[in-house]
């Protein structure tokens, strides 16, 4: 039965909702907090900041990560920066503007109340990180420096060179380390969460596997915080780290947590292209490069001349031609889609034909090499290290790559999923970015959820519950552990002919082709069949060597690919059911005569939240009510 979900948005005007909420919630007595155990899965910006903050408050925290150290979570790879409405440059920024830009950037498919709260706490995040010793970039006067980013007309992005994610994560990691040293957090590294344990309808524990010894472990808690990141690796090739995966979230989904908007994925336009079949991941080049680089392809199909030998009249600067007012600085989704169109027409460049040029020649002539080097030197160096080509001499070759997933587990205003006691933070939830995320907003959301939202909403949950003691001997733990073990044993026993990587690559190709930058009803139906067939083949023909009782990375990957196969099918279903184009979700059937995304606000101003049932997926909806902003069409012509 399809239902309408209640996001539990507090009453009152938008600007007062979060304050109203904080004024009326129940609190947990300081002396009682240590009696409550909170399980935090994942140690990225969301999980790290949540674990540290909750331990500081006095909760008994257990923290889990799949890496060998909590410092290695994939938040560490974020380059550009973190937004906040500080308005230090005095250029007119306000909390309202940050809110509005984020809602518009998300193509009006996110929840007003959540996004406003995000903008409100953004300033506290910067204060907190500076107090922790995060070395943000500064001006000569000693105050913090800002830069501008896509989708905004103000400079509100704080940064630490091209390593902002690293520095923010290390700040959260150090705050966690302090609590680990003080005995308030018990840290479990190299552990993978394999199931959620639900007792009397509430999330009360998790099953983890020790990745070094293969042992299963049962952990009891009063609440579970899932901070396990996004699912971009369903595409096999993405800018995500190799270990990023959907398994913990998918296990929760199968235990009753609805999965929202899985088809909303972000394809970033400026990545280093694929160079061969052995390619294991893709590397992002900051979108700031589009400030001074010009995107082009040859006018003729199959033009194999070297770029420097192609004269101006034979080049097509297609973004400048099609979008004269925004030019090379159109938003990520538009830039990506146009690169795909150019290569689909056979005008792609490089050995594979799956790339376009990003050319700095004109900027170097105009500004001088030194200026370009000062702006982008580290990026040019990284490009040369990977490709062996010098971008000062020849144009960069770039191509879009999967970068972020806006979809995730459905949560209400309190970040609580449809399973009571299971909270979902950061990229793992769906809540704040709608159908497209703006640059420098992911770091903001992860830290907002962990430092400034969950300490309140978790307390309100715990204070309102009766949480009787649960033992790890409870049936629910035994059942979940047996199920996890049965899967592992099955993976090892198939003994087939195809490697996990081969299955993953094949899945990635299907999803990239049909549920990537451009989607059609026919293609999506085909993808559902193909993925379903691949899933069947996986369980009959996968080959996973080695033992379950030693370190066995291939076995870890096998379990994750099995879950990606199920998720891939749901993504296609979700994309098929959303009969409109919005943000990163472009359905070819729904476009303007000029080829731009065409929303259908009458029928699709809602969140699609999918319930897993024994007989398949059931669609539920949350209606998005826009009381404060007017829905408009994004135009960049």
């Amino acid at each position, binding site marked *: 039965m399809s239902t309408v979900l209640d996001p539990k948005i507090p009453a009152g005007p938008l600007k007062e909702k979060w304050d109203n909420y904080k004024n009326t919630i129940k609190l947990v007595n300081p002396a009682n907090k240590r009696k409550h155990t909170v399980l935090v899965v994942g140690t990225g910006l969301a999980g790290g900041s949540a674990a540290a903050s909750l331990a500081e408050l006095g909760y008994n925290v257990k923290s889990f990560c799949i890496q*060998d150290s909590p410092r290695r979570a994939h938040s560490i790879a974020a380059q550009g920066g973190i937004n906040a409405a500080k308005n230090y440059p005095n250029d007119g920024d306000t909390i309202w503007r940050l809110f509005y830009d984020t809602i518009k950037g998300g193509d009006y498919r996110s929840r007003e109340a959540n996004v406003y709260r995000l903008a409100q706490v953004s300033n506290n995040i910067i204060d907190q990180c500076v107090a922790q010793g995060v070395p943000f970039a500064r001006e000569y006067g000693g105050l913090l420096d800002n830069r501008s980013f896509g989708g905004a007309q103000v400079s509100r992005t704080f940064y630490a060179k091209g390593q902002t994610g690293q520095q923010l994560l290390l700040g959260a990691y150090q705050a966690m380390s302090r609590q680990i040293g003080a005995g308030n957090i018990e840290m479990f590294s190299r552990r993978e969460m394999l199931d959620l344990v639900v007792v009397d309808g509430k999330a009360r524990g998790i099953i983890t596997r020790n990745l070094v010894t293969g042992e299963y472990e049962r952990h009891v808690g009063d609440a579970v915080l899932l901070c396990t990141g996004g699912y971009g690796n369903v595409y096999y090739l993405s800018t995500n780290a190799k270990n990023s995966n959907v398994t913990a979230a998918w296990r929760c989904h199968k235990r009753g947590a609805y999965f929202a908007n899985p088809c909303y994925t972000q394809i970033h336009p400026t990545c280093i292209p694929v160079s061969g079949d052995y390619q294991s991941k893709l590397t992002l080049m900051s979108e700031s490069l589009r400030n001074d680089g010009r995107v082009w392809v040859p006018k003729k199909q199959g033009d194999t001349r070297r770029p420097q030998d192609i004269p101006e009249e034979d080049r097509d600067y297609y973004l400048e031609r099609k979008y004269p007012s925004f030019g090379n600085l159109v938003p990520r989704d538009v830039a990506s889609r146009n690169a795909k169109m150019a290569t689909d027409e056979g005008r792609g460049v490089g050995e594979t034909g799956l790339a376009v040029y990003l050319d700095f020649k004109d900027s170097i002539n105009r500004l001088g090499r030194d200026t370009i080097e000062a702006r982008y030197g580290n990026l040019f160096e990284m490009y040369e290290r990977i490709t062996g080509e010098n971008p000062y001499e020849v144009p960069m070759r770039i191509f879009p790559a999967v970068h972020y997933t806006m979809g995730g587990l459905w949560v209400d205003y309190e970040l609580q999923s449809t399973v009571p006691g299971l909270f979902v933070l950061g990229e793992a939830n769906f809540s704040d970015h709608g159908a497209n995320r703006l640059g420098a907003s992911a770091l903001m959301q992860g830290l907002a959820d962990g430092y400034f939202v969950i300490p309140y909403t978790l307390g309100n949950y715990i204070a309102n519950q009766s949480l009787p003691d649960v033992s790890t001997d409870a049936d629910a733990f035994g059942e979940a552990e047996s199920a996890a073990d049965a899967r592992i044993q099955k993976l090892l026993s198939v003994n087939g002919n195809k490697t996990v990587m081969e299955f993953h690559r094949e899945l990635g190709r299907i999803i990239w082709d049909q549920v990537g930058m451009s989607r059609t009803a026919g293609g999506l139906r085909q993808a559902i069949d193909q993925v379903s067939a691949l899933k069947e083949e996986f369980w009959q023909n996968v080959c996973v*060597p080695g033992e379950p009782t030693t370190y066995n990375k291939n076995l870890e990957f096998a379990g994750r690919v099995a879950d990606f196969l199920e998720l891939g099918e749901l993504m296609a279903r979700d994309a098929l059911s959303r009969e409109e184009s919005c943000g990163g979700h472009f359905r070819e059937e729904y476009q303007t005569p000029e080829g731009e995304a065409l929303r259908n606000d009458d029928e699709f101003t809602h969140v699609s939240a999918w319930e897993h049932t024994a007989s398949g997926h059931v669609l539920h909806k949350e209606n998005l009510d826009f009381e404060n902003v007017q829905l408009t069409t994004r135009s960049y012509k």
Partner: protein
Amino acid sequence: MAHSMNITLKVWRQAGPDAQGGFETYSVPDANEHMSFLELLDVLNEQLIKEGKEPVEFDHDCREGICGSCGVVIDGVAHGPQQRTACCQLHMRHYKDGDTIVIEPWRAEGFPIIKDLVVDRQAFDRIIAAGGYVSVNTGAAQDANSIPIPKDDADLAMDYATCIGCGACVAACPNASASLFTAAKIAQLSLLPQGAPERTMRVTNMVDQMAKEGFGDCSNHAECEAVCPKGISISAIATMRREYMKAMRG
């Protein structure tokens, strides 16, 4: 098109922490110049799985030189021949057809081997937990711009803060010292007003923890700086010593 290369790999294999390890020799006939070093290991592992053998275990994650997960000794050099490059960003174009490459794990008492090329680096976490932080609770911070910091200090602090915790400094050091790792955090925080009240305790506790973990002391070989993928300067170690002396004198 990319040149195909035949590469011979001599890889350290060790079944578990207490097992006897040894080198195994493998041939990868279809390597190519565009591959990263870890992609070469991927290709080797696919080959091994197809032959019914166990793949070589190695740690890796972001593959863009920032998470610090990967790290092996390549022909005797931590992270391999290219300076300021973690082995995930080392590319095969720096090798030629017919080359033989020797791959070993980090070797240090503080980093016990888990399997093959994978080591346990949790000692680094314990060093940070001993004092590598600023004690400020969430919500207790004042406005960010109320603490001006000279740009030069902030920039230098950032240089030290770029440490990725990979452990190459330990692997390269003849004393298996964790001095560069420990000092990078101490030096970063010593440049900032934040956390100044606890700087004495910080340096004492972190240095003591480093010793407890079985890492040696620094005797100025500077091998650590040479292999550091982030190019962190050993001037950090001088700062750490100065901080330590100051702490000792009270």
